[in-house]
């Protein structure tokens, strides 16, 4: 099942990367990465482990620092200027592989802490937003529990709600289902699918090929720190152009 393609040609640019290079010591993690994500676009980034896809997504909100090249998010260039970094982080939500919920806070507090502290929202208003989001991800009854009392799938849904509470324009997902038991993957993917149809800009690193096929507007294939191939899901899965992509697909789809 493939969604009808959105017409994004007129949409403004959400993320722009030009010739981005990143090194860890002498190891080059990103090699001349250039790409563009339009507003409302859903981009899935795939590639073998160690290919730099997580590193790239983490550069977009400055969890990692790139050394050369330009990254512009929502019209703001990512520089050493704290104000720019803060502005970008306010507009970019992130979901991590290991959830990274705050274990000492309740589920609702996890969600309300940033709106209250960063956006200076009243507590009642923040809790209203939080409960609405918990409703949206399907676990309002867990609001007063602590993250440690939830299953992995529930925790990741809380993490998504937490990121959405800041009303970001862009959502980054860094392998959101990789740490989950198989039967919990679906509940998280369902939330992400619903999100993908809501018009938010999404960039998602994942190994879930079914998900990529279903919701992605575009697939970006990374290998050895480089963008090897960019295509619509149908093109990418049915006739990959590079040998590396062919090999990768045969390995992950072959079993």
């Amino acid at each position, binding site marked *: 099942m493939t969604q009808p393609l959105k017409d994004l040609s007129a949409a403004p640019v959400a993320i722009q990367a030009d010739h981005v290079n990143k090194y860890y010591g002498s190891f080059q993690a990103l090699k001349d990465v250039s790409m563009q994500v339009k507003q409302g676009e859903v981009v899935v980034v795939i590639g073998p482990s160690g290919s730099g896809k997580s590193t790239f997504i983490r550069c977009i909100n400055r969890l990692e620092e790139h050394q050369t090249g330009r990254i512009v998010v929502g019209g703001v260039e990512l520089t050493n200027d704290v104000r720019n970094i803060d502005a970008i*982080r306010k507009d*970019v939500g*992130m979901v*991590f592989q290991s959830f*990274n919920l705050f274990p000492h806070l309740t589920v609702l507090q996890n969600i309300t802490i940033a709106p209250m*502290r*960063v956006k200076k929202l009243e507590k009642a208003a923040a809790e209203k937003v939080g409960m609405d989001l918990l409703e949206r991800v399907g676990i309002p009854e867990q609001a007063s529990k*602590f993250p440690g009392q939830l299953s992995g799938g529930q925790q990741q849904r809380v*993490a998504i709600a937490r990121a959405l509470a800041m009303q970001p324009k862009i959502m980054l997902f860094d392998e959101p289902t990789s740490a989950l038991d198989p039967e919990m993957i679906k509940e998280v993917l369902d939330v992400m699918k619903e999100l993908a149809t809501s018009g938010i800009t999404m960039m998602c690193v994942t190994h879930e090929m079914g998900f990529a096929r279903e919701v992605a507007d575009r697939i970006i294939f990374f290998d050895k720190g480089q963008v090897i191939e960019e295509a619509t899901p149908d093109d990418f899965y049915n006739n990959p152009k590079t040998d590396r992509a062919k090999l990768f697909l045969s390995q992950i789809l072959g079993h």
Partner: protein
Amino acid sequence: MNSQMQASVPFYRDVKKLALIAQVVFLVVVVLLIALVINNINLGLKKQNLNFSFDFLNQTAGFQVAEGTAFGVPYDSSSDNYFKVVFVGLYNTLRVAVTGMILATVLGVLVGIGRLSSNWLVGRLALVYVEILRNTPVLVQLFVWYFVVILGLPAISKAQPILGVYLSNSGLATPWLVQKPDMPNFFPVTIIAVLIGLAVFAFFSNQRARTGKPTPAGWYAIAAWLLVQIIGFFALGQPLEYGAPVRGNFGVTGGLQVSPEFTALLIGLVVYTSSFIAEITRAGIQSVNKGQTEAARALGLGYSETLQLIILPQALRVMIPPLGNQYLNLTKNSSLAVAIGYSDVLNVLGTAGNQSGQNLQTFFIAGIVYLILSFTIAFLVNLYNSATRLRTR
């Protein structure tokens, strides 16, 4: 598996019986050792013609104590007994230990955070602070603080008051609310107020954990504490008055007087203990998963908000047990007061022992006192520890 097979196991191969035998053997050894010690003490006492009795506590102490009261009740060496003078010493010990624990924690946590600072200079300074202080004996440090720093201050006749505060080699004198001599003792009110404040904090923290509703437990606790103090103040007919230090011919009178001995001991213990607390803080912060910082920063929380709201509360859980050890150490190290002449409980008991010739009893009392103090601290730390335990399935 049938019972006959079990019964056929000889006792020296039966795990349960072996465990029982080991316990019995251990018990016998312990009892024998205790009996040996008691017998030894008895023989020693008999040889010196002494008897192990605490009757001397009722005798008049007759020696001056440089500072402190029996928890607010003034001590008069010409009429009060040994029993009361022990409480003056205990009061002095608690004064320095409790203040010391609070200040050492604040200073230690700050230095610990400094150790992890990305600012090169701050990090290095914190490192030097920690390494010098925790690698030199606390007794040496006390001597330096007392003889070099505090006694090196100008004499009281030459000291200049700053906002009514005198700092000289006879200590610190500052304006304060002081007890009126002929009014009821206000000290118990303070103790009760603090206990009620702690109870309120425990209650609301617990409620927050149960209902998940964020409650400002800390503010409620402070409000309860202040309220009890104010009610107590008026209920007892306003037993406190404002007092400012006045310089006379023989030093300063009035206000709150802090002796140079207390100051040196407090600074020494605080600074020494803070170096260990700094390392505990560093370990605590580093034990928190890096993902926590990343998640907080990705949400737009700033450096200090992340530290204060996300990292420190989690680090604290790891820090509490070793922090408790440092509190015990600080309290026990306060007995080094004797080296600089501060009248803590061990110092007072030592004098009492020498004067009455009942050294065995006074050291026995000292041991019991420190044991009770340590158990109380350990109990409170454990209470806090279990109250803030992470809730998982």
